[in-house]
């Protein structure tokens, strides 16, 4: 058996590298940044030792990393890179370009807090800055899921109805630098699962003298179809991606036996739950233990893991929580100045409000683990207790973690 198949102990970052290899990526551009660096280092090592067949280009900055991927993807190559935190911010301009020009680039993000002060630990605030760029986004909660999601991402991104780039985010250090056993499937199964890369390149951009097209031009505001229609098409592709993500998750389960809910969200004991917490990333995985414990005490609690962040799983959330008495939403990111201070809680409130089944459902926002601050199961248990107390009292429970209407778990109050 090759070293790339079977059950192996790997770091989260290496799971991303091995998956890129398994997906037969053709071009990788790279620039180091903690905590992502190991992803591209491993790929460099694999290419150097002849174990991976791709073009590996060292760039002088993250901006160039994305520019390089855009060039390679224009030419029809399957492309991959990785970045984190400040690197993603520096990359921002071509990040938007990649989505605007509809290239199926896949990039893993070992998420970290945004400076200042300097921070390199788990915090999804980095990808939140690119939330509305048009990229598809997933928040991952395990080593195996990193590997599997890279494979699924190519299948979703390269679907002609989608053709959008994909960002796969996982917590820096807490997943990037920890090791766990993962199962790597047979290459033949993976090859069968993944789409074929079109010989001529992606349908909408390939260059051919017999089919003259223009790239990246200036279009006057009132040209039709023009800029506004191109933007509408990105939103349309995001909406069309929802059933495709669900379909690919289903097919993945049938082929490889691993379950990621419906691809958009993953329920944990939600069916009969009265109190449901929406969570994401590794803290969602950890919260499964807390749900089990709370259930052993007789509380009807459940947890809904938000797996896909873009497109936002509006219908999936409504469907999973409509029967609950009250729900909590836990963010590991900040959205300053938003209604709650947390990106997912603000957006969940907006999503529920427009549906008659959930318009009266109370949402309690929590923010925790900012900049990698430890969140222990005891604190997650307390989050459920606060949720239940808020329901019983019909109002927010006052404590030192409550600032305005949001509970900042594990924080000292600020004046």
């Amino acid at each position, binding site marked *: 058996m090759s070293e790339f198949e079977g059950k192996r*102990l790997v770091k989260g970052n290496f799971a991303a590298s091995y998956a890129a290899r398994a997906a037969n990526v053709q071009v990788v551009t790279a620039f180091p940044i903690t905590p992502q660096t190991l992803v591209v280092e491993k790929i460099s090592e694999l290419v150097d030792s002849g174990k991976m067949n791709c073009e590996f280009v060292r760039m002088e900055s993250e901006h160039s990393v994305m520019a390089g991927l855009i060039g390679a993807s224009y030419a029809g190559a399957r492309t991959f890179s990785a970045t984190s935190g400040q690197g993603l911010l520096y990359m921002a301009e071509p990040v938007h370009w990649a989505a605007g020009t509809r290239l199926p680039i896949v990039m893993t993000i070992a998420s970290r807090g945004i400076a200042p002060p300097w921070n390199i*630990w788990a915090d999804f605030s980095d990808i939140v800055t690119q939330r509305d760029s048009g990229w598809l986004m997933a928040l991952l909660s395990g080593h195996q899921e990193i590997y599997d999601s890279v494979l699924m991402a190519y299948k979703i991104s390269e679907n002609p109805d989608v053709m959008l780039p994909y960002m796969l985010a996982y917590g820096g250090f807490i997943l990037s630098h*920890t*090791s766990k056993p993962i199962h790597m499937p047979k290459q033949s199964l993976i090859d069968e699962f993944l789409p074929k890369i079109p010989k001529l390149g992606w349908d909408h951009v390939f260059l051919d003298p017999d089919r003259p097209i223009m790239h990246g031009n200036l279009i006057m505001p009132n040209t039709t179809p023009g800029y506004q229609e191109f933007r509408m098409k990105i939103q349309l592709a995001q909406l069309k991606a929802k059933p495709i993500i669900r379909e690919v998750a289903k097919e993945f389960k049938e082929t490889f036996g691993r379950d990621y809910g419906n691809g958009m969200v993953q329920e944990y004991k939600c069916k009969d739950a009265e109190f449901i917490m929406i969570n994401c990333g590794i803290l969602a995985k950890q919260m499964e233990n807390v749900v089990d*414990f709370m259930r052993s005490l007789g509380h009807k609690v459940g947890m809904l893991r938000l797996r896909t962040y873009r497109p936002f799983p509006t219908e999936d959330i409504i469907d999973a929580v409509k029967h609950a008495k009250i729900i909590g939403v836990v963010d590991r990111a900040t959205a300053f100045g938003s209604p709650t201070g947390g990106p997912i809680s603000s957006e969940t409130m907006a999503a529920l409000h427009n549906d008659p089944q959930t318009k009266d459902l109370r949402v309690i926002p929590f923010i925790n683990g900012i900049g990698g601050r*430890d969140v222990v199961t005891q604190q997650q248990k307390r989050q459920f207790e606060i949720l239940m107390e808020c329901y019983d009292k019909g109002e927010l429970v006052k404590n030192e973690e409550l600032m305005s209407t949001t509970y900042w778990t594990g924080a000292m109050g600020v004046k």
Partner: protein
Amino acid sequence: MTANLEKDFTEVTFHGRGGQGAITASNLLCAFAFEEGYNDVLDIPKIGAERRGAPIQAFSKLSKEKEIKDFCAIKSADYTLVFDFTLLDIPSVATSLKGTVIINAPDFVDLDCIAHVKAIWLVDATNIAINNNLMISGYPILNTLMLGAYAKVTGQYTLETMKKVLNQRFGSRGEQNYIAAKEAFESVKKVRG
């Protein structure tokens, strides 16, 4: 993990100094347990911006059956490996120790500051490393030795398993590491508990 949430795996904490190999040790421990047939293992290096010589911590969680979902730092370890006995001078390190503690130290070290722990084992890993030429840039590398001692104390994996993994991992230096680890396995001794 907390007192009222059930715990069903072994938790191990590593205290060392940057450059001694404690972070690699937490990873190797997982590799040994995994090779030995443990279903799920997890190593958590507490890294960020480490410096050579500065106190560092790493954690391993080993589960025979159930999936490890708990990723938080270990507060109450079953086993603790202390790579440098001078770390016991740091009150927060000494008072945090619980369960069984394995210390790299000569016989004469003063252990009164950790009289509260369940059991104490000593191994003179620094000297074994020097005698076996397990050195990088003049520093003794202690990870495989401490794990040799751990194998003896816990019985969680065999010397054969160590040998296999070390040879896979370190190629030509695997055997050298194994010989030193075996020496630590044979010489670690219980001094309290």
